[in-house]
């Protein structure tokens, strides 16, 4: 016998009730759309622009993008889940991405990651991004950042840091405080 499920399927997307696109951002997005003969092509660039402003992509952001590009929300949601750089939840103010791939691993990426986690009071064995309680730092292991000659490397927001030692790591954290 089939049982009926009465509970609604939980929405995987986080809501951001006060979401509003400021006029300057909308102008930037309108300009981005002109780069492509097909509106849908602008999806990723629009998501980047919104994420750069808000730090993450909420349900409202995804729905807004879909309306803007004359698409269904699923067309945007599927991008947000496919591409690792898009965030579905708010992240720390400083996002530390430590490269874990081979060349960096050979030169101490795992030790570096543990060092950061200890300093920030986070669990190095946990999978995926973690954020400190004060919302200041997020840290995660990421795949190759294409700077293998200066391994180990990491990114703090948009900036690449190379040949990172424990001392350098402490300095990076210090500079972000």
């Amino acid at each position, binding site marked *: 016998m089939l049982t009926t499920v009465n509970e609604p399927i939980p929405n995987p997307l986080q809501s951001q009730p006060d979401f509003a696109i400021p006029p300057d951002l909308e102008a930037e997005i309108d300009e981005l759309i002109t*780069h*492509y*003969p*097909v509106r*849908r*092509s*602008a*999806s*990723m*660039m629009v*998501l*980047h622009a919104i994420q750069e402003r808000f730090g993450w992509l909420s349900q409202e952001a995804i729905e807004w993008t879909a309306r803007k*590009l004359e698409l269904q929300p699923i*067309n945007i949601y*599927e*991008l947000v889940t*496919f*591409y*690792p*750089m*898009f965030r579905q939840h708010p992240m720390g103010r400083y996002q530390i*991405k430590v490269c*874990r*791939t*081979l*060349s960096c*691993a*050979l*030169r101490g990426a795992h030790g570096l990651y543990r060092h950061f986690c200890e300093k920030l009071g986070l669990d190095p064995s946990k999978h995926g991004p973690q954020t400190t309680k004060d919302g200041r730092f997020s840290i995660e292991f*990421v*795949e*190759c*950042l*294409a*700077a*293998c*000659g*200066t*391994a180990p490397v990491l*990114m703090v927001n*948009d*900036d*690449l840091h190379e040949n990172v030692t424990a001392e350098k790591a402490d300095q990076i954290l210090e500079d972000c405080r």
Partner: protein
Amino acid sequence: MPSEYRLILKHADEPGYTPDIDCYLRHGGYETLKKALSLPPKELPDGRTMSGPEQIREEVKISGLRGRGGAGFSCGLKWSFVDRKSGKPIYLICNADESEPGTFKDRQIIHKDPHQLLEGMIIACYANDVHLAYIYIRGEMPQGAKLLNKALQEARERNVLGKNILGSGYDLEIYVHRGAGAYICGEETGLIESLEGKRAYPRIKPPYFPAVLGLYMCPTIVNNVETLCNIKHIVAMGGAEFARLGTPRNTGTRVVSLSGHVKRPGYYEIEVGKVTIGELIYDPAFGGGLPDGRKLKAVIPGGSSAKVFKAGEKFKLKRQVEGKEVEQEVDMLDLPYDFDSLIQAGSMSGSSAIIVLDDSTDIVEALANISEFYAHESCGQCTPCREGSLWMAKALHRLTHGEGRAQDADYLIRIADNIPGGRTICAFGEACSWPVQSFVAKFKDEFIAKGAADEERRAKAAAQKAEPAAAATTS
């Protein structure tokens, strides 16, 4: 004495060389573009005339340039496949999604000499009648994207880009498109899907050859950053002169990314085939050898998907000696670093990224690291790749976390053998299984020993657990 030969990175590291257009113009920048745009039609002996763009395409064919992204396919041939009679617009995309682990050459070009890329790209677009082009740069290079946008703006202001370029009547617009962290976007049809605003699911070929049915189902050329830079130099020096660099069938220069256990990791530009793998690792002009007291264990010669070479491995190479083809036995370190020798040795130069592993490396850990990468990056479209890459990573995870089994080595090979060979839409299937096949085949004893040690330890622990219980029942 082997040494660097800098063509692409000629100015990149000169003191005072900046990525802005004024500096580029001071160093003779955009002169080649002027030359390309003003090529007069050429009369051929058979009475036909060859237009300027056709002449450039011919020079690229003569140059023997092979793609620098990974496959090493002839660039001239790739361009010749473009459907020019469809009446649809032709697009060109610069693949700047540098994401093969070990590779960091395109980053240098984009950060240090972005106008060289633009000049090569504009010439390539002119040669192929392209009026709209994109640079697909990986999401993890936000600074690179900013630099390119600035360079494009400068180029528009100086009219080397935009409407009626330098008064030639030729229009071209180039835009930067950012990826968002997916390795599969480096595959050209995946890249096209991504540029269309979709998930980067590679397309099946046939029928979706980009040269015929690419971006928006129009003919499309996808070329790597370094390949496009080479176009500028081919037009500047002529295809025949370019072909004199490097070795026959392996012409020009390549920027080699050297990483791992060497004293001087970094990028080195060499004439293709003029320097051996051993020289790249040991010569003071290049890697400068392994850390003191360490011995070589293995070399991954062309990005993490290339099949690994074991130290001391020997290969039979077919070589031309005084016009005759002879077979020579060559040590792994004496392999000339080019496309064909490495293919003959069963691997590839791929994206020209060498990762050196010394004797301190746990080879099982190294493979586990690579496999985790591929399991994370499989797009999930084809079952053998999605499941296979995941199960290989799982087996390697247990081998590196004390849960291994002696038969895991065979198990890994069995999975790896069932992924590639036309069972998947794109070459990712090959890319994820080649490292597993080669690592396990060449270091099988280490895989078996690790698994067997885990089994023994578990058996002992189980016996210890059982003993007190047995003692309790007998008393």
